[in-house]
């Protein structure tokens, strides 16, 4: 019996659409296209991509709303209130406003880089969603190296930020871009080392396998050092307070996106939150058991239709809520302090976490957390 996956749904949808098209048009080639697997597959992939795009964008916009409301509560105010129920539509209004705005480009700016930077930043952030598995029926995460691929695409960002910063021809943008590049490169290393710890325990680079390995226990317990390193590095990668110095508004106006307005700025904004969403999703996938639930949760709560997606999104939003909490309560660190923390603290810690993971795999069973499955699942 084949499992229903998002991709199989898209494929069936493409097939039915083509069949309907041929039937309505009464046109030979259109009817014949249903029989051509290449055409059906191509259309299926397009539908798959469209669903992913819509889902990720919608989630991002809801995420921004969620952050605004949560930040508002932390700050003793209410956040967005007026557009839609509890301000739910405020971000759509904001997006519409940005969409309508004229895009201005500084006189001496490099035209190609100025437009290429934000676009590529946005696209590269969106691409990651094609790789992340959200639930069991999401076989895109089953690629043998899906985790590696996701992280590779995730680490494209500093290049695009730097391109857009440099091509803006603004000193603040340039400084922001340089800071961003330095920061992301410095924090890429502990991030990847923390991931290595997970990979060592799970024995696979496939995100789906990593989640399946967490059926017995979630990895955050035995790999708590790796989790701490990963969260800290992820905060830096997402450029959120306390590590938001590339766009530290106090000294750099808006950092690398100072010169951007209108839709290009919206691209930056959306991509930032897409990356924040990706970061939260990765934490859930790697450390919090993805869509699985521990055994003590009653089965009614874990077996209803789409339960996997529900639990997954709940965990993701809780993790993002933690980031919002951090943002509401911590000041910003300085560039040199940030780099010192990255190189002097997080990298040794991440190496320690790899060592601990290796020890865990050799010991096999831990008294509290249970036994590690054999590598490779």
């Amino acid at each position, binding site marked *: 019996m084949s499992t229903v996956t998002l991709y199989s749904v898209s494929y069936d949808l493409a097939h039915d659409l083509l069949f309907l098209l041929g039937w309505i048009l009464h046109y030979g080639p259109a009817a014949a296209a249903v029989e051509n697997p290449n055409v059906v597959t191509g259309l299926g992939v397009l539908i798959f991509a469209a669903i992913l795009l819509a889902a990720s964008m919608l989630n991002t916009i809801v995420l921004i709303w969620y952050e605004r409301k949560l*930040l508002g509560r*932390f*700050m*003793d*105010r209410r956040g967005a209130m007026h557009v839609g129920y509890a301000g739910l539509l405020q971000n759509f209004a904001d997006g519409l406003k940005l969409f309508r705005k004229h895009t201005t480009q500084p006189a001496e700016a490099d035209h190609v880089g100025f437009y290429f930077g934000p676009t590529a930043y946005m696209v590269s952030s969106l691409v990651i969603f094609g790789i992340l598995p959200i639930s069991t029926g999401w076989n895109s995460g089953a690629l043998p190296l899906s985790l590696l691929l996701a992280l590779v695409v995730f680490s494209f960002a500093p290049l695009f930020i730097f391109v857009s910063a440099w091509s803006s021809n603004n*000193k*603040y943008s*340039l*400084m922001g871009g*340089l800071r961003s590049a330095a920061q992301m490169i410095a924090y890429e290393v502990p991030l990847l080392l923390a991931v290595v710890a997970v990979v060592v325990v799970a024995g696979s680079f496939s995100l789906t396998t990593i989640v399946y390995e967490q059926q017995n226990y979630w990895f955050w317990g035995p790999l708590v050092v790796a989790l701490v390193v990963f969260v800290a590095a992820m905060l830096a990668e997402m450029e959120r*307070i*306390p590590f*938001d*110095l590339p766009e*530290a*508004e*106090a*000294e750099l*106006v808006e950092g690398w996106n100072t010169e951007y307005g209108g839709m290009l700025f919206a691209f930056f904004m959306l991509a930032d939150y897409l990356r924040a969403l990706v970061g939260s999703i990765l934490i859930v996938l790697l450390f919090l058991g993805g869509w699985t639930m521990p055994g003590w949760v009653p089965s009614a709560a874990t077996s209803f239709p789409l339960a996997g997606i529900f639990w997954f999104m709940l965990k993701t939003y809780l993790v993002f809520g933690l980031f919002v909490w951090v*943002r*509401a*309560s*911590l*000041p*910003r*660190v*300085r*560039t*040199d*302090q940030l780099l010192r923390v990255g190189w002097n603290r997080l990298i040794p810690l991440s190496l320690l976490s790899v060592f601990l993971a290796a020890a865990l795999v050799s010991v096999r069973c831990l008294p509290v957390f249970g036994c590690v499955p054999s590598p490779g699942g």
Partner: protein
Amino acid sequence: MSEMWINMGPQHPMTHGLWNLRVQIDGELVRAVDPEMGYLHRGIEKISEDRHYNEVITLMDRCCYVAGMAWEHLYILGAEAALQVRPPERADYLRVLCDEFQRLGSHLMWYAAFVQDLGLMSPFLYGMRDRDLVLDLFQSFTGARMTYEYMRVGGVRNDLPPGFADRSRKVLDWLDDRFREYDALCLGSTIFRKRCDGLGVLKGPEAIAHGVTGPMLRAAGVKRDLRKDRPYSAYDRVDFDVALADSADVTGRYLVRMEEMRQSVRILRQVLDWLDHHPGPVVADRLPRWLGAPYAPVGAEGYLLKRNYPKGLGLSAIEEPHGEALSYVVNDGGEHPYRVKFRSPVFANLSAASTYLVGYHVADIPPIMGSVDVCVGEVDR
């Protein structure tokens, strides 16, 4: 990246107003700074020469938009000295009340802006929220939240409304509580200490040489507070301590301002108690007749010009929330002051920028300037 000049301002989030800090940077290090003021010059001193003594008060509110009451007080003291008018005792206490509430409002505003420069988002709104309570109190007895026009030559405009003391005490209790929260959010945060300790050091002798006053001077361990050293109004009759710190850095200035707020609360409690038990007039009864009328009645201009009133010079100095402010009012017997001159504490504090900014990082400029507490309105006047 080699050395380059960047303009931080006149429209930059760091400036908290309208001035320009030209910074020569080498990578992330500050090599030289050059503060440029004057973007907000409105000619307040010159305009004052064409105004009635009491009309100048409206300008004082606009002189410093976060500490309008302190500037009113400053000018009024100078004008009273020039006109040889003495206010009744209750007015003295009311002025101390205004001053200290203004100090609270101004320091809360400073707190909000300063933590915002460090990237702290929630305390910024906490500071603004609590400042609002102070503004509400101001509104309840002056009718305005920022431009009060409350003080008058020879007293104040009106007495406090009924119930004011209770409302104020509630606010003071609330604030006392909040100061602990502020400290927990700032001093309790390792990142805050790492950012602020040893930052923007301005030692005592250097500060004195540059004419730096106020919390910046006291943070360097110099015990100088005009409220104690040269008491005016009712400050010699209230009990308080001068806030001091000896680290001379951003943390020191933070500590001094927080302690000043606590002392303000202490002073305010005493003043409120005194006001409860000593009703009386709030304006001197022997005022020059023309001080009551803002404009000369039609046909009486000649009379007003010809009147014969003693000439005089008035010099006053007060401890404004930002530092020591001076006013110099020349009364040549006319209905307008002949000359009005102010000394702005922030101007001196800003002028010394190269002593406490050079050698630090670009990212340190906002917190350091935040700890200076810039109010551009009074710098440029």
